[in-house]
């Protein structure tokens, strides 16, 4: 087993920041979807507008997936910090 060294406080703080970043990515996904929907409606051609709209929809979903994954990774980071701390504090009592 490789050496493990951890500052649990940095993990919980980093986890919160990463989750917040995931939330921002979700917000970006919503913004993107709205902006592209408006653009698609303004193109003036059903084919080209549809292509732009499809692009926005798929990208918004991808960004939402990225946001979700990032937020969950942040949650895991916080959980890891708590697990390290709980192990340190709770499992080695006399």
């Amino acid at each position, binding site marked *: 087993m490789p050496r493990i060294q*951890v500052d649990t406080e940095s993990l919980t703080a980093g986890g919160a920041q990463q989750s917040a970043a995931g939330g921002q990515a979700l917000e970006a996904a919503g913004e993107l979807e709205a902006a592209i929907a408006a653009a698609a409606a303004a193109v003036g051609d059903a084919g080209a507008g549809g292509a732009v709209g*499809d692009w926005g929809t798929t990208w918004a979903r991808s960004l939402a997936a990225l946001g979700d994954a990032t937020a969950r990774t942040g949650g895991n980071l916080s959980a890891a910090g708590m697990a390290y701390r709980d192990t340190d504090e709770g499992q080695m009592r006399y």
Partner: protein
Amino acid sequence: MAGGESYGGITVPKGEPGALEASAGRLVATAGLLQSVSGHLNGVLGALSWFGPASAQHALLTGTQNLMASTSSTALIQQASVINGYAEVLQAAQRQARRAIERAKDADKRIDQAEEDIRQAVQDQASAQARIVGAQAAQMRVFTSAVDLLAGNAAAAAAADLAAAEEADARRDLAAAEERERQARRRLEQAREDRREAQQDGLDAEEAVTIARTGLIAAAQGAGLLPTQPGGPANPAFAAAAGIALPKPPEPEEDDRNWIERRLDDVGTAASWTWDQAKQVPGGVWEGVTGMYEGGKFLVELNPTNPMNWMNPGRTIERYQQLGAAGQFAWENPGEFGKALINYEDLAAGRYGEWAGNLVPDAILAVTTGGAGTAATRSARMAKATNTLADADRAFVRATEIQAKMPSRDFRLDKTIAAQPGDRGGISISGEIFSEQGRMLDRVGEDSSLLKTQSSAEVRERMHTVAKHETPPHPFDAPNPDGWYYGVHAELRLLLDDPKVPVGVTRPPCPQNCDPGIQSLAKSLEQDILMRSPQGPTLYRGDGTVISNPSPKDFSGVNSRWPGVLWGAGGGAAGLAVSGGGP
């Protein structure tokens, strides 16, 4: 939805440039948000005090998420550039189409007025002719009464004077009516020309938007980290590394078209006609394109499977736009086309900045320069020269077809017929009996109002004043003045009226007069003139040189360099996409 208004075959392209620009702005703001995400994730990694196997896995996962956020931000900015560029094309095209409609309406009014004036003038001439005949008859009656005259009958003499005065008056009215008719016909011709130009401007605007829409679709479907299925990014391995679970993508439908064809077909039948036509040519444009770049740069940049293209959608779009505009030349000269389009000399010499700067979308140029070409790039001039050559071919085919269906042997074999391209282009027939020429055209279903009717004297005079060319005498001149014979040759009438429009003629220009005359005309006007005869095309350049069977690169200005000259009014977003990408 803005646009859509239509008049006489001219339609203002639909779309809302303002809303598109606003959307592009929102995309840029969203890109900023993603940059912030990337910054936060960097901060997370930098602040962690954690070593161990799980730490390494987290760092890898977070680093990938960071990269995705950052890459997405860049892609959104590029997409914003594309949308902004399209908005600029659309705005300029709408403006041009609206102006074209106003001009067309004005021209139509003038056409109606001129036609009414002609009708009135013809009616007045008939009336004056009748008065002349009446007055002459009256005089005849008086003079035949010789007894009265010999007897010095005062009443008879007065009647004779009155009839003579009436005839003179009627002749003045006739001359005035004839002059009014001539002026009205000139106005009619000018109005029809204005109408044709307005129509062409409308078509140019429509085509520019069609090409730009092709680019928009290409950007949407072939550029960036585009997910291959809803909800998933393009690269499954990338997604897995970022911790994103992908659903299984649906099986793709069978499609034997190549990628470019699919993109162009997405805009439907309105896609560039050059592409559609080129596809029908044996060994067509696609084969030409695939074989034309030894270096493979152009092809690589059209290839959506190249990851670099995902990062530079604007550059890919540029290639599409240029391919659409210059497709015809590509099929004719694949090697030269490739080098010209990518400004091969710059590329070979490593002048990447100039190379990128010269890649201006022809769609934008066509609108912003209004065809004047003052800010034209090499590719735009090349495309224009290509079109001019194609127009000359069409003009020649038209002239030949008109002559072939002429009902009399004289017109079918002995006359020379010249024509401009297009159904509404001018027609000229050698000789000076215009009423007969018009009648012949009517008989074969051609519009006789398109017939050019300058007299030999007018042609000689204008060749003298405009081209500084003296029409030489010919044995057939008598009993007419010297130079009459050469002055009735067909092609000169068309070229003197509109030297910019290529002319097709059923006989080669005569070496005694027409050939040197056209050369002088081109030089005097500093205007390239293109003729197409049975011997092939001849380019009379504005600098005085004459080139047989020219290629597009032989036209004035095609090979001139324009380093640093960008599109001016259309500059900005799309340029960012190109320059940002680099070659």
